[in-house]
């Protein structure tokens, strides 16, 4: 390619690089830049150093809300890691067993919720869990647990967990698919050799298959982390921008939205919004970096 000037490479690259840079990279960098500015007279921003960050962490109006959102997000993440990923693993393990009839039907059915918009999911579950409609209560009555029914979505103590579980319900298909693909990749030979060695299905899974898919489990974890700290849609759909009751379902995404757009008692502030966004970016970046250098390095991808 030294003979002629590679204009074609530039032509091929240009449109994608331009749009990507203009609408993804530049806004991100600009947001970070904006976080160092404050709004002055008539909304004109002026450079103010770390003032916004100081406000965010020190001003009681802000820091309380921020840390509330942060910890709620951690809880959201924890519930996903503890519920979504093990269920995904279990379902993937079941699906990957040899000669399973109806495999395609199961996959299609379990993946269906992932295809639907979060708005649909949110409202569907709101209706089902609503004490007015009584569907959830009736179902629990079937299994004799009617007394335990509560309007979970409306209660401060249970709202976050409930929404987290709804999110798990919707997205379990993704780790299931990724883990399933990884399990398919393990050569049949290894399972057969293990069976000849005397292992039953459970032993094959825990001692042969699971160690070999650890890299995939790692990827699933970090994807969950990024997705959870970027989450917004479900909570907004069910609870609106205020993330009630009493901010118990407020997470970083909704906190960002409110800061940037404003709500009843407070004007939106682009600079504070940018600050929150930058913090979110740093959190996600930290998580990804820690993951790649701490965890993924040790999970050797074994040549199969």
């Amino acid at each position, binding site marked *: 390619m030294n003979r002629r000037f590679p204009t074609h490479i530039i032509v091929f690259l240009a449109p994608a690089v331009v749009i990507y840079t203009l609408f993804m990279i*530049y*806004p*991100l960098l600009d947001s970070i830049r904006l976080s160092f500015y404050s709004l002055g007279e008539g909304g004109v921003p002026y450079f103010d150093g770390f003032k916004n960050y100081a406000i965010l962490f020190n001003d009681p109006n802000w820091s309380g809300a921020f840390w509330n959102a942060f910890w709620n997000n951690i809880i959201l993440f924890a519930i996903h890691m503890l519920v979504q990923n093990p269920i995904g693993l279990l379902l993937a393990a079941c699906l990957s067993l040899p000669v399973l009839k109806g495999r395609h039907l199961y996959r299609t059915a379990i993946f*269906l919720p992932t*295809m639907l918009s979060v708005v649909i999911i949110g409202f569907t579950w709101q209706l089902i869990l609503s004490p007015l409609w009584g569907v959830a209560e009736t179902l629990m009555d079937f299994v004799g647990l009617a007394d335990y029914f509560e309007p979970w979505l409306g209660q401060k103590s249970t709202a976050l967990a409930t929404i987290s579980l709804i999110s798990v319900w919707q997205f379990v298909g993704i780790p299931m698919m990724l883990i399933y693909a990884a399990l398919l990749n393990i050569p049949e030979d290894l399972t057969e050799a293990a069976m000849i060695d005397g292992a039953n299905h459970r032993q094959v899974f825990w001692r042969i298959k699971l160690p070999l898919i650890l890299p995939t489990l790692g990827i699933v974890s970090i994807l969950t982390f990024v997705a959870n700290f970027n989450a917004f849609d479900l909570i907004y759909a069910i609870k609106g921008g205020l993330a009630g009751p009493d901010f118990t379902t407020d997470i970083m995404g909704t906190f960002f939205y409110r800061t940037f757009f404003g709500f009843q008692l407070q004007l939106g502030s682009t600079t504070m919004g940018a600050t929150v966004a930058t913090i979110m970016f740093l959190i996600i970046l930290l998580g990804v970096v820690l993951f790649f250098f701490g965890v993924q390095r040790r999970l050797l991808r074994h040549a199969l």
Partner: protein
Amino acid sequence: MIIKRKFNAGAVHVILLIYCLIAIWPIFLVISNSFKSRKWIFKDPMALPDAASFSLVGFEKVLSRSNFDLYFTNSIIVTVVSLGVTLLIGAMAAWALAGYKYRGNTLLAFYLAIGIMVPIRLGSVSIMKLMVGLGLMNTLTALILVYIAMSLPLTIFILSEFMNQIPNDLKEAARCDGVSEYRIFFQIILPLIRPAIATVGVFTMVPVWNDLWFPLILAPGDEVRTVTLGVQGFVGQYVTDWNAVLSSLTLAILPVLVLYLIFSRQLIRGITAGAVK
């Protein structure tokens, strides 16, 4: 092997079946009840609509009170156009990365791949300023541009991995024939990556169609509303009108459901193929 497999099969089917029910039943409930009259929705939510309870009143309300057909059209335009453009320029960029060797190639690939992990939403403040500056607020174009930028990193990654697998012989034979680089791309490479299109399509179309954030921020006006935002607004507005709410949800679900069922095999094949990276 023979005996053990038979024993396990029973337990496995039970587990899978239980979860299937958990996954499908809520959706079924919504669809089935949207075809009932109001009193029957409350009286017997679990039953299927029968002659007594069947009613289309919910749908009538939805279609008369809101512009659902407009929202659908908007969603389709945004999704299809952004998918099409993403595929074209994404394939071109992927080819520039995979088909040629030059300095900075790896760095460029890395730069483009960063977007996979970084959520584009974080730059929303500036994106909005940009759109205002370009005069694109409340247009479908704004959404399309943002979605293209959002979908490019993963698309380029998947397509370039795919292109790396095309045997070098093919590329070199074409070059020996003196064919121009553009023709090589359009007539040889593009047809060869058709299988990867399914994978890319899945990872791109679903998040775009279902997105709530950007329509909310960039295109909240009624003429440019997408289905997702439209349903959200409608349900928020008529929250006590159960008929209307259920029907609007069903209207939002059914097209996706139908398409999903038709293409489920290709879809799942696409996902498992893309997941093996």
